[in-house]
């Protein structure tokens, strides 16, 4: 029987990847963010998950506007990061677990979702940066990846409820999985930030606190705003909270917050990292 052990929620902005590439983790500007991963590192050392199911958004590495998916699920034997335009390509491959990917695809289609099924797929900084943050010293990543991309690029985006429901369906598939893997779910992106337009630099500490305060105890509170209301509150990239909403739903009801780190400014972003553990993990 598989176990969903917990969830890691974290910002993923390219600036963090740049800081990693340059080794700036101890730099006073970056340290307050990187230090947020100390509890994550201890938890991963203790739990040693085998699989990471990652809800993220592609920013224009694997998908373009010729064919922009609402939801895309990777089912490849291996994934790679590549140069996204600023010359950084993280070299370590991300091993896949296509059998589990297909189980997820079967479950979500059965549940009336319409995913794109991807047997070959590049993953961008929204997967690569969280992996570098979570396993900074790994020779090779110790988890197998199921990447699940949510459209946050081109409106109409899926609603928060739709993302929650996708997460619930993925959670059902994970619980039905007959392997004995320990699974960590990740939701990447956010929190409030906006890169473009006259409101560039928009941040919203109150909304971010609202999200962090409710994520574990009352995640449906995050559904009370529509996608466009979230754009207004959190900024046009802050809408990446959709990835957090989906990941949180996959975790199931019974979990507790282990740690929270929130720091402004990191790049133009309110950067946050949260670690959540399920009761399953504790009793396993």
């Amino acid at each position, binding site marked *: 029987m598989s176990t969903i052990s917990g969830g890691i929620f974290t910002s993923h902005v390219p600036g963090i990847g740049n800081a990693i590439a340059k080794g700036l983790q101890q730099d006073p500007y970056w340290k307050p963010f990187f230090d947020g991963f100390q*509890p994550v590192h201890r938890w991963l050392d203790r739990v040693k998950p085998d699989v990471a199911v990652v809800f993220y958004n592609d920013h224009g590495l694997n998908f373009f506007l010729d064919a922009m998916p609402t939801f895309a699920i990777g089912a490849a034997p291996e994934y790679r990061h590549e140069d996204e335009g600023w010359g950084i390509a993280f070299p370590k491959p991300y091993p896949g677990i296509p059998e589990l990917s297909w189980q997820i695809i079967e479950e979500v289609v059965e549940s009336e979702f319409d995913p794109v099924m991807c047997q070959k797929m590049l993953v961008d900084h929204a997967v690569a940066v969280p992996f570098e943050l979570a396993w900074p010293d790994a020779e090779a990543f110790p988890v197998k990846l199921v990447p699940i991309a949510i459209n946050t690029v081109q409106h109409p985006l899926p609603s928060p409820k739709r993302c929650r429901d996708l997460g619930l369906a993925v959670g059902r598939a994970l619980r039905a999985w007959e392997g004995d893997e320990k699974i960590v779910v990740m939701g990447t992106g956010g929190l409030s930030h906006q*890169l473009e337009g006259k409101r560039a630099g928009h941040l919203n500490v109150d909304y971010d606190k609202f999200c962090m305060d409710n994520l574990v105890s009352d995640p449906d509170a995050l559904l009370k705003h529509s996608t466009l209301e979230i754009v207004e509150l959190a*900024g046009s990239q802050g809408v990446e909270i959709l990835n957090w909403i989906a990941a949180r739903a996959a975790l199931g009801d019974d979990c507790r917050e282990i740690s929270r780190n929130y720091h402004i400014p990191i790049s133009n972003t309110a950067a946050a990292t949260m670690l959540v553990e399920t009761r399953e993990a504790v009793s396993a």
Partner: protein
Amino acid sequence: MTVLGSGARRRLIPGTDPFDGDLAMRGFALNDMCYSFNHAENREAFRQDEEAYMARYNLTEEQKDAVRQRDVLAMLEAGGNVYYLAKLAGILGLNVQDLGALQTGMSVDEFKAMLLSHGVTIREGEFA
């Protein structure tokens, strides 16, 4: 301000133009060009001859002018999507604070100060 979608789905958000079908239609050529910048050799080709490269991707005159002027707001107005424009910004040597300053009319230092004005660190839970 923007009008998103049609009918009941219209919503105005200050200083924000959600990238929807209207903008996507307008901006395809510009975004197509920027998507090509994932490849270093394409970035180099653009650097060597911006005009030829823009012509190759059939940019509209409005889009070409916005690129020539390094006018980010005009690129957005011409349908540019920030995720693809970010790849162009890299070529132009602009980081996200530079972009923020350009779009808001602040100096880079003012923009950074604005970010810092929200400065806060919250840390809870199992830290050593």
